[in-house]
């Protein structure tokens, strides 16, 4: 069957199935199990209303449970076991973690991840803040914003191609077609540099791609926050003789720290999961490995589920403080 047809059928089946499930399950509940008639009418309605929320929630809970909650525990289990040849597995305790900690590539990935965690959220937030503030009150601000926001729609893979062209290097004597090398030569550089193969610094060239993508996100959120800063506080500062920089750093910035933290943590999570950019641009060569790509290598190239799962647990561990903090805040807000 043609995949497009299969897709259409799935849409029809999936959508029809969902609607049918919700509709029929409600009818059965109201008409058959607890009919709203007879001598127990009040009790029946009450009971139906106790069950109904779970009917609404059931598909979502099943999907969430299977696709997000169960894997956390299963990955934990896998990270403590070793697959045996010919199927089955055996409990090996912390052996996988021990093996992982003994690998140079793991430490390289961890080190790079921390570098990414320091640079990317800071860079994206700073550029986002700059863009938000600069475009705030100019006539074509919205147009400018939408152009800076645009990379958000571009896939990491697409961005990888775009930036590989920027970093492209040609042999000496020929015209440089990568912008970076063209500028480098123009300002007196001797030969074109293979930017992505220079250890340590190449990680920064990869980070630039993510900063480029995430700045738009930071800008949109921070721009809304800047607009929310009470006008009278700004006017009061100007009347007192504050210059624009003082207004920004002393008046506006302190009032939007909460939003900056939100933006920062959201980008932090993106960074922890970053995979496509490294996979497409260097595949972890020249000391650019990061955890998510290391994990992919272990799982699908080395076929080592134990160590792969162990490194996935490391990513989970790094995410957990943010997870706990978010849950804590959400619960506080609900009260």
């Amino acid at each position, binding site marked *: 069957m043609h995949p497009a047809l299969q897709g259409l059928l799935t849409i029809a089946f999936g959508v029809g199935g969902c609607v049918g499930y919700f509709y029929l399950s409600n009818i059965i509940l109201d008409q058959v199990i607890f009919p709203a008639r007879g001598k127990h009418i009040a009790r029946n309605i009450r009971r139906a209303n106790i069950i109904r929320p779970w009917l609404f929630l059931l598909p979502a809970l099943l999907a969430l449970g299977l696709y*997000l909650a169960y894997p956390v525990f299963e990955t934990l289990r896998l990270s403590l076991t070793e697959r045996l040849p010919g199927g089955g597995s055996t409990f090996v305790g912390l052996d996988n973690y021990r093996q992982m900690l003994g690998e140079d590539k793991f430490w390289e990935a961890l080190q790079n991840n921390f570098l990414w965690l320091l640079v990317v959220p800071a860079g994206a937030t700073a550029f986002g803040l700059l863009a938000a503030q600069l475009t705030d009150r100019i006539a074509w601000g919205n147009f400018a914003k939408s152009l800076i926001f645009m990379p958000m729609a571009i896939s990491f893979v697409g961005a990888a191609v775009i930036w590989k062209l920027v970093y492209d290097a040609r042999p000496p004597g020929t015209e440089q077609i990568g912008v970076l090398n063209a500028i480098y030569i123009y300002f007196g550089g001797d030969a074109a540099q293979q930017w992505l193969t220079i250890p340590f610094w190449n990680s920064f060239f990869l980070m630039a791609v993510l900063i480029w993508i995430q700045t738009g996100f930071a800008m949109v959120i921070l721009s809304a926050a800047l607009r929310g800063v009470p006008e009278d506080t700004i006017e009061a500062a100007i009347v007192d003789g504050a210059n624009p920089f003082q207004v920004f750093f002393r008046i506006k910035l302190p009032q939007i720290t909460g939003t900056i933290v939100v933006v920062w943590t959201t980008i932090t999570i993106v960074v922890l999961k970053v995979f496509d950019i490294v996979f497409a641009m260097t595949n972890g060569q020249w000391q650019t490995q990061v955890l998510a790509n290391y994990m992919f290598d272990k799982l699908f190239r080395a076929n080592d589920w134990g160590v792969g799962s162990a490194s996935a647990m490391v990513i989970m561990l790094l995410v957990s403080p943010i997870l706990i903090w978010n849950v804590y805040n959400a619960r506080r807000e609900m009260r």
Partner: protein
Amino acid sequence: MNSIAGHKSGLTWALHISVVLLVGLWIFPTLGLLVSSFRTADQISSSGWWRALFPTEQNLTLRTAPPGTQTQIGDLYVIEGSLFDANSGQSAVISAWGTSARDISAYQPGEQGELRKGGLLTVQADGNYRLESNTEISGKRGPRVFVTAVVPPEFTLKNYETILISGGATDNMAKAFFNTLTVTIPATIIPILIAAFAAYALAWMEFPGRALLIAAIVGLLVVPLQLALIPLLKVHNEIGIGKGYLGAWMAHTGFGLPLAIYLLRNYMIGIPRDIIENARVDGATDFQIFTRIVLPLSFPALASFAIFQFLWTWNDLLVALVFLIDSTGETTVMTKQIVEMLGTRGGNWEILATSAFVSISVPLMVFFAMQKYLVRGLLAGSVK
């Protein structure tokens, strides 16, 4: 800040210029890809794309017409014509030329030069040439001529033709395009439906454990999907789905749900209580309230999430690699194909740029058409 005291016009100029610089910096890389996708391989490798908009001086290697076209005039064998006619029909102004690769600017236009294999060649600035020889000119192809010429900007749609229609198996993206579409559309619609019902229950129905569930969903928002790869691949293999569209749709649904439920619940909770209470008093069931009142009112939130999910599934690589693409490669998606091209055709920028642009053009269109909803969704969706 026009109405505020202390306003300086110099500062306004600085402001405008810095915004122009910032925007320029941000669109410059993408612009490079777009411009490159309309250039030929020769053009891309001979000059930076930023020069494509202006006439450029290029070193071209051209050939005269083949010896088969020579005519005999008296004692002389002659080939005449224009260098540019025989080679792609472009027009340019020649500033220097040569007959050997070691000295490509040996002669000025109008001068007469000697060919290594014998014969005299004259090349004019407009590309017209005359090749004379005392003996019959042999060989299959005409002798090479190296010219330095100022070539006017020229763009071509040929790359797009290669990528979309005529290219070979590794270059043609048409199939991957439809595969991507096949993954994306069900993977966008199904989670919306499931999430909408769940969000309604979490927003407007009373039941024990509701607060706990909401907290759990906020927690699941940040769980890295890396954790799910192996366990779910195992599950898919055990229940017989294996690798394929069904698995990819289900995976995208599962991974998209926390954000969908979170966004929709936050929006639905803002619907005025009166509307829903009145409907209840009038005897509407929850199912009716949901389909007739809440769902239509939640359209902006539904649109926001639909855009997120669409962009995410269209741009995804990891889920496709793990759950969709099997060893036959029949179900490959565009992101995967581009990664492969980056490996095998690293230097063929005309192919790479065009395929990348084909793959990002759809999300870009969605982005510019529905930016309003995207922004609204971002503002509602970032966990506070």
